[in-house]
């Protein structure tokens, strides 16, 4: 069965590593749904969190192929039940009148967003959370007219002390 899987990859923080990792997905015929990259708790190592749409066999193959890359130190799949997944999203939404503005600001509270910019006819929100929560907010705001969306894609870590 095909579904989204979240893989966390610890890699050497060197030029070309991102290309190697993403190139591997392309070459083996897997589609990256999202990817986030940043430094990790270890100096000179970076962590990539990649969401890939695959079946179990494909996922296994992706993990093994990633492990073969000399610059890849560790590959783990994050179980959605025992990991925390968060994404940041900036949304610029139209607020043509006072009513719209009030309503959008109410949603902001419900969804625990931050207002990061306001101008005459638009508000820019920053929302952090599970991708599902962000999707829900976007759906609501569509009624007002969304000017721009910028999403980081989810990053994730496992819960508790497990790796």
């Amino acid at each position, binding site marked *: 069965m095909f579904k989204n899987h979240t893989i966390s990859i610890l890699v050497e923080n060197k030029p070309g590593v991102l290309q190697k990792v993403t190139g*591997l997905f392309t070459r083996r015929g897997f589609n990256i749904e999202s990817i986030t990259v940043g430094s990790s708790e270890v100096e000179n190592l970076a962590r990539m969190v990649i969401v890939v749409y695959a079946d179990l066999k494909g996922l296994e193959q992706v993990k093994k192929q990633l492990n073969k890359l*000399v610059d890849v130190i560790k590959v783990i799949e994050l179980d959605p039940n025992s990991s925390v997944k968060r994404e940041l999203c900036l949304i610029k939404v139209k607020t043509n009148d006072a009513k719209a503005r009030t309503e959008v600001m109410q949603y902001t509270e419900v969804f625990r967003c931050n207002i990061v910019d306001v101008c005459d006819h638009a508000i820019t929100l920053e929302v952090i959370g599970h991708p599902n929560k962000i999707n829900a907010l976007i759906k609501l705001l569509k009624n007002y007219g969304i000017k721009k969306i910028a999403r980081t894609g989810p990053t994730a870590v496992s819960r508790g002390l497990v790796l």
Partner: protein
Amino acid sequence: MNGGEAILKALKEQGVDTIFGYPGGTVIPLYDSLYDDDLRHILVRHEQCAVHAAEGYARASGKVGVCLATSGPGATNLITGIADANMDSTPIVAITGQVNLDAIGNDAFQEADIIGISMPITKHSYQINSLDSIPSIVKSSFDIAKTGRPGPVVIDFPKEMQEGELSKYETTLIENPGYNPTLGGNIKQVKKACELIKQSKNPIILAGGGIIISGANKELEKFAKTIKAPVVTTLMGKGAVPEDEEYALGMLGMHGRIVANKNINKSDLLIAIGCRFSDRTTGKIEEFIPNGKIIHIDVDPAEIGKNIDVDIPIVGDALNVLKMFNNQLTKYQPNPNAVKWYDGLKNKKLKFNLKTDYDTNPLMPQTVIKEISDSLTDDTIVVTDVGLHQMFAAHYLNVNKPRKFISSGGLGTMGYGFPAAIGAKVACEDDPVIAICGDGGFLMVSQELATVQTYDLPLIITILDNRKLGMVYQWQNLLYNKRLSQTDLGTVPDFVKLAESYGINGVNITKPGETKEVIKKAIKDNEAILLNIDIQKDEFLPMVPPGSAVEEVLGDYDFEDESLTNEDAAK
């Protein structure tokens, strides 16, 4: 010491005695260092042949092959060979020139992003951007190229790095914490596998190139004889067991031997070692080993479960794992059913001898290969190109030692055979080397006759000349309604005159017996010769059509015993 001198020193520290290359603008400083060095350089006539020669060198010797080319077009000409080495797990280090560091990214003259271009087809790559790192990068490249599952490593070497002076020549360890090939093999898995072997009535071994790479042939022989399992091989596995032996059933697959193809699916236990279940080997994967369990031993964990689900995976080097098996099985009493199966297949192998004795004009490819086979010693290295002649060779030649049959397996690179034979000859000066080529593939690389002549390499070049692009021609005839699109290669050139123009003896072969005679004489006289052998264009090798099960062989073999048919091999 400048960078050029440093890399030559570092290469020699890795045991390199020969490199294959072609100069160009961004490697002039390196070639300048080479001018005073005792490292042997073989000047090829096209960079693609430098990398194929390095592959042939590596495959024949077991050492890492090294090739050198300039930046841009020189480097991109290496790509086919790098991809070939990657598919066939051949350890090579390809050194490419590069424009100066500050010019990189500016589309400088002869600039190409060779690291980026080669990324999907290399095991690893380095760009040298500090002079003092040269010795360490060379060491790390060799370590990566030859350990675990071997493969190609690219070292991109900017021109200024070749010219600059090192502050200190020192080899330090480059840490690659992400690179730890599992070589050991898990004893628990081995024990579980032994239990399956004990219960098996029809065990069979599929041996791949991994046996040859790890030098596990003796252990494999012992293992097969202990558990009474006949051995079939992949193309890359030819020579993993002595093919003259009765239990060695020969190559399996699209052009596999009939006894192997017709019986493998009767097995209740397949033990696959050092192979990757290529579609050319298994036929339709869903119908491969339908009623049996599979034990898969490979050093590359990604190969396990990639093409076929296995019951017992064992990750490790074939030699180590087979030693563990043989230790577990010291007092092993084979299953009586397995003995029966083993003896039955041995007898079948003896019975299903293929006819090779034809008196036709042009010659039959079977006859030619048989004659080549008859003129070989066990130490002769046969290097084939890719195509119909390759499959005839793989099918009709018996190879009795590892590293004596070299062919482009995974990538199927036409133009591989001749330059790879040059590399093999350079690596093994004392062993006769025969290149078996088709007319099409030879013409892709025929300029290397100059290399053969220049270095006085006593290479025997056989061209099975049917004036066709034979393999495609066969497919068009069998599978594409005889629509013979662009597979007639005409009658140019005259290969004998071509050889002679390079100062190499050539001879046209038209009669049975001549091939053997000429080759034997050439081996005795230790001189280069080109045999242009006129063969039948319409003689096809039976095949398993793509997408069919491995026992569904299209086309009939001629057996020595004329009463036998393909189907009898299944009974």
